[in-house]
């Protein structure tokens, strides 16, 4: 099956090309082709996954893409485009293609009647292609190229409703924030190449293990890690993700569950040997992840927009994954990525269903009592929330446990405690959302109704996975089949799953306490929410404004960068043009402004040229004329 792996990214790409050039006119054909190509990719991915479960040996196929021969002391540059199929990529391919099918299916219902229907499916296919190309990459360069393509296609999708200024702003913000991160990533891989002479993962592995230069490895590791900080929206480059909600909701589901943000975590797993070789890098990764988990969870607590709650929850869960990688457990990070893909896709599509039914109302305080009108959506949403909160025996319980266990096992007590607190907060904000939006009395005059089967079918399918996916890494699964997630995707030695009753008990108590608190405040109204907000108004304001980080960045761009540009432009224009304009007025010349400007500018342009020549001559002759200048 592995020899057909190239089909996985190529099929969605064919769908992109076909829709753009041939099928654009026919909505049905566009959607059908997109869906069919995703299903075909999924079948191949499934075949590969089964093959890898039986025989986990990595397979690599590659062609030369860019080859600059050796010249003199120049070592030459060889860049490949290839496929690396091992358990890690096989698992990821399965997740991405599976979520892609459901998102496509859901979108057919969600985007119905939109004037950009065909275009939407073209972009969605491009997005899937970019992500799948990234997953199968066998070298850093290819990964970077597809990494950028993921960025570009997410730009197109987030800004899909470009007539909304907020969507255009969000798309731009996502794109540019990510570029800052990619900048460090790019320097990192160039340095990697200069030092080791290859981009290839398999060749780099042993080379990195044998290198003595620890400081250099740390530098490269941190530079490359900045890439995932951007893509996986870790603090301080997280600002784009919540705004990315402006895109169509199925796209948010795709971004949050299986593409874009997962790419960052996947990169850490793919290049794990590089990060693992430096203790400092690992510490940085662990604490950035942990901090993001806490930081984002605290913001999620005060959000009112249903999608924003989910967005900050994604941030927080991504923090968990990154933290798991940082404390040294690739398995825990990837496992949480897997289970999270299912229940976060479920939650987003559920939110999409609600928003669709509410005619694009996203404020949860204007919903209420949806459980009666939309039973399927409601109950699948509750399952997703329970899974996210980590309630036994749903998927999130197992993966969250794995992370907490890893933190405890590697003696990161601080991060362990932080993990438990975040578990409490997660349960709280999810059930705040459920009690407010789905239960209680109607908060506005809405006529919500259950959505069509195209939209509920993915919800039901996903909720099955949200319940069951966790068992993949449970002791029971291992006893029954002699295999588990942790003996499939791992770094170093495979671990056999076990359940630590202390950790499991603690996290369950935290989750239940969160749900109970939410129930007290929002369902029983034992303590009115407003009075809490009033009492801690300073804190509330801080959280509501997302710690003012977005504002800070805005200020940085608007004031600092834009002003510097303006100032330079001003010098270019006013000091030169303006001086002569003003001079002319002063003396009383009333001739044509243009002519005066022209004369003035010319003299000054010339002055700059000659001045620069003199300056450079002096500069260049300093060493020669040493005595004279002194």
């Amino acid at each position, binding site marked *: 099956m592995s020899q057909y792996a190239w089909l996985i990214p190529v099929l969605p790409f064919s769908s992109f090309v076909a829709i753009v050039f041939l099928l654009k006119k026919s909505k049905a054909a566009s959607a059908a082709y997109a869906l069919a190509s995703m299903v075909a990719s999924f079948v191949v991915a499934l075949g590969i996954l089964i093959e890898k479960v039986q025989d986990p040996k990595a397979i690599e196929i590659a062609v030369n893409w860019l080859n600059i*021969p050796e010249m003199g002391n120049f070592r030459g540059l060889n860049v490949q485009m290839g496929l690396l199929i091992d358990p890690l990529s096989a698992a990821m391919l399965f997740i991405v293609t599976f979520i892609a099918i459901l998102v496509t299916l859901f979108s057919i219902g969600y985007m119905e009647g939109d004037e950009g229907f065909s275009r939407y499916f073209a972009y969605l296919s491009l997005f899937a292609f970019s992500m799948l190309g990234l997953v199968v990459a066998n070298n850093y360069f290819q990964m970077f190229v597809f990494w950028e393509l993921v960025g570009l296609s997410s730009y197109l999708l987030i800004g899909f409703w470009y*007539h*909304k200024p907020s969507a255009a702003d969000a798309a731009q913000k996502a794109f540019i924030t990510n570029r800052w991160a990619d900048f460090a990533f790019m320097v990192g891989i160039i340095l990697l190449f200069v030092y080791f002479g290859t981009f290839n993962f398999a060749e780099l592995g042993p080379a990195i293990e044998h290198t003595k230069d620890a400081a250099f490895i740390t530098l490269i590791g941190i530079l490359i890690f900045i890439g995932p900080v951007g893509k996986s929206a870790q603090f301080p480059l997280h600002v784009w993700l919540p705004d990315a909600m402006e895109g169509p909701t199925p796209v948010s589901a795709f971004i949050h569950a299986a593409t874009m943000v997962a790419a960052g975590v996947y990169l850490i797993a793919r290049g794990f040997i590089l990060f693992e070789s430096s203790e400092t890098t690992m510490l940085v990764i662990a604490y950035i992840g942990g901090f993001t988990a806490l930081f984002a969870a605290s913001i999620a607590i005060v959000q009112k927009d249903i999608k924003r709650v989910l967005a900050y929850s994604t941030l927080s869960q991504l923090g968990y994954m990154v933290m798991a990688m940082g404390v040294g457990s690739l398995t825990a990070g990837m496992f949480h990525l897997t289970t999270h893909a299912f229940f976060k896709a479920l939650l987003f599509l559920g939110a999409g269903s609600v928003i669709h039914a509410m005619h694009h109302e996203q404020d949860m305080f204007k919903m209420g009592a949806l459980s009666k009108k939309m039973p399927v959506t409601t109950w699948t949403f509750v399952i997703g929330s329970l899974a996210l909160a980590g309630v036994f025996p749903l998927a999130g319980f197992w993966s969250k446990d794995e992370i907490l266990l890893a933190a405890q096992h590697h003696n990161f007590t601080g991060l362990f405690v932080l993990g438990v607190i975040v578990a409490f907060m997660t349960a709280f904000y999810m059930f705040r959302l459920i009690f407010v939006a789905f239960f209680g009395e109607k908060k506005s005059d809405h006529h919500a109704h259950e959505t069509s089967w195209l939209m509920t079918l993915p919800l039901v399918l996903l909720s099955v996975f949200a319940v069951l996916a966790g068992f993949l890494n449970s002791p029971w699964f291992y006893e029954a089949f002699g295999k588990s997630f942790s003996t499939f995707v791992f770094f170093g030695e495979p671990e056999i799953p076990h359940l630590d009753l202390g950790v499991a008990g603690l996290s369950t108590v935290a989750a239940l306490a969160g749900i109970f608190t939410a129930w007290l405040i929002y369902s029983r109204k034992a303590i009115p929410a407003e009075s809490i907000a009033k009492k801690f108004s300073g804190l509330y304001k801080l959280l509501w404004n997302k710690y003012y980080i977005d504002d800070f960045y805005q200020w940085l761009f608007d004031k600092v960068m834009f002003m510097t540009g303006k100032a330079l432009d001003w010098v270019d224009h006013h000091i030169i043009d303006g001086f002569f304009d003003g001079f002319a007025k002063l003396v009383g010349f009333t001739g044509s402004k243009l002519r005066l400007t022209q004369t003035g500018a010319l003299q000054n*342009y010339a002055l700059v040229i000659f001045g620069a020549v003199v300056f450079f001559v002096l500069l*260049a002759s300093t060493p020669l004329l040493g005595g004279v200048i002194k």
Partner: protein
Amino acid sequence: MDFSAVTIEILVALLGLVLLVTGLLLPPDHKKANGYIAVVGLLGILAFSLSGDAGRSGTFLYGLYTLDSLSKYFKEIFMIAAILVILMSLSYTKRFREGKGEYFSILLFALLGMMVMVSSNDFITLYIGLELMTISFVILTAFDRSSLKSSEAGVKYVLLSAMSSAVLLYGLSIFYGLSGTTEYAGFITCLQSGGLGPALILAIVMVLAGFGFKISAVPFHMWSPDIYEGAPTPITAFLATGSKAAGFAVLIRLLLQVLPSQHVNFSGIIIMLAVLTIIVGNLIAIPQKNIKRMLAFSSIAHAGYILLGLVAFTGMGVGAMLYYIFIYIFANAGAFASVTALSNITGSDEIEDFGGMWKRSPLVTAVLMISLLSMAGIPPAAGFVGKFYLFASIIKEGYVWLALVAIGMSVVSLYYYVMVIRVMLTGQVKSDEPVTVPASLKTVMVVSSAATIFLGVYAGPLTSWTSSVASMFVK
């Protein structure tokens, strides 16, 4: 005498002269036909040059003039740029009140000047080529006599280039004074005997200033925004691509072939020029409201990136420069063709007039978007491979800090490129009148964006070509 080394130049000169005659013979309403003749003729000459029948190497006039892989590469680049510019001009010339026929032949003389510059093996020949190019450009810049801005730009350009030429000539005359010869070969021999002292440095700086003006490196850049804004758009495109490429071609030849022994003396200046150019170009581009001015500053910034190849001062660096210049021509041709398409309809070059462009012309939007993304260095557009190649070449020489500056500023550049894309997608629609794009312009747009994507996705053939050209500079 071996004329095979100058066949291409002779053919271009002949074509230019033929156009002068046909320009007079054609009826006033059909002067445009001259453009078609020029395009067909140049395509033929380009094919002839690429086929290799025109000779691969050789010298003319006892070594005053040389044909080698570097000059051949650049001549082919110039011809491609000229063809694109002429196609762009076809719909633009209707604005000119007179001289519609001569326009094309002057354009060819500018092209001839560039070719002479890159092939010359002698300071005087170099200067003649330079002036042929410059004076042709002055005429072209001021060609739109109905526009005040165009005339103003012409006057500014003639005065400022005269000054920069003066500086350059002073430098060249010092070279002659020191060595007693104007030939590169003799000058190199003289340099090897050593001990030319401070006067040599003075001369090198002056030569750098002269060509820094042509490539619009900061602080010799101030002319370019004014002139780019004022000149007819196709000429702006030619200035930004052809003229700049010619400047770089001469710099590569002079610095790496004639003056490599003096590298210690000028390497610091090149680094300073590169850093200043990248930073100032990108920052001033941000607040621009006129797209031609924005593209002018962006082209200043690109000159800075290309200069990085000279900072590296290796075969790889030159290879990266050659590649970058090639793809940069297509990105600019695409961008300026889109601007021409719009200004043909509205007569304006303001960025805000691009509002809602995707509704009026999806083609213009797509082409401008691809071109700008290539300039910003986003894959799969070719600009990404080009930037990667350049940055890798300097990191390889240990200039990590410089690469950080360059990459950082290229992220900054994304602000102003994406701003234009944003306006096209979301801005206020100024009018519902659809933008019709003439076929000639459409050709330029489609060809340049296809090339931009193709060279980004499959860079292999071009990089092997550029590295074989650059292999002559391997130490």
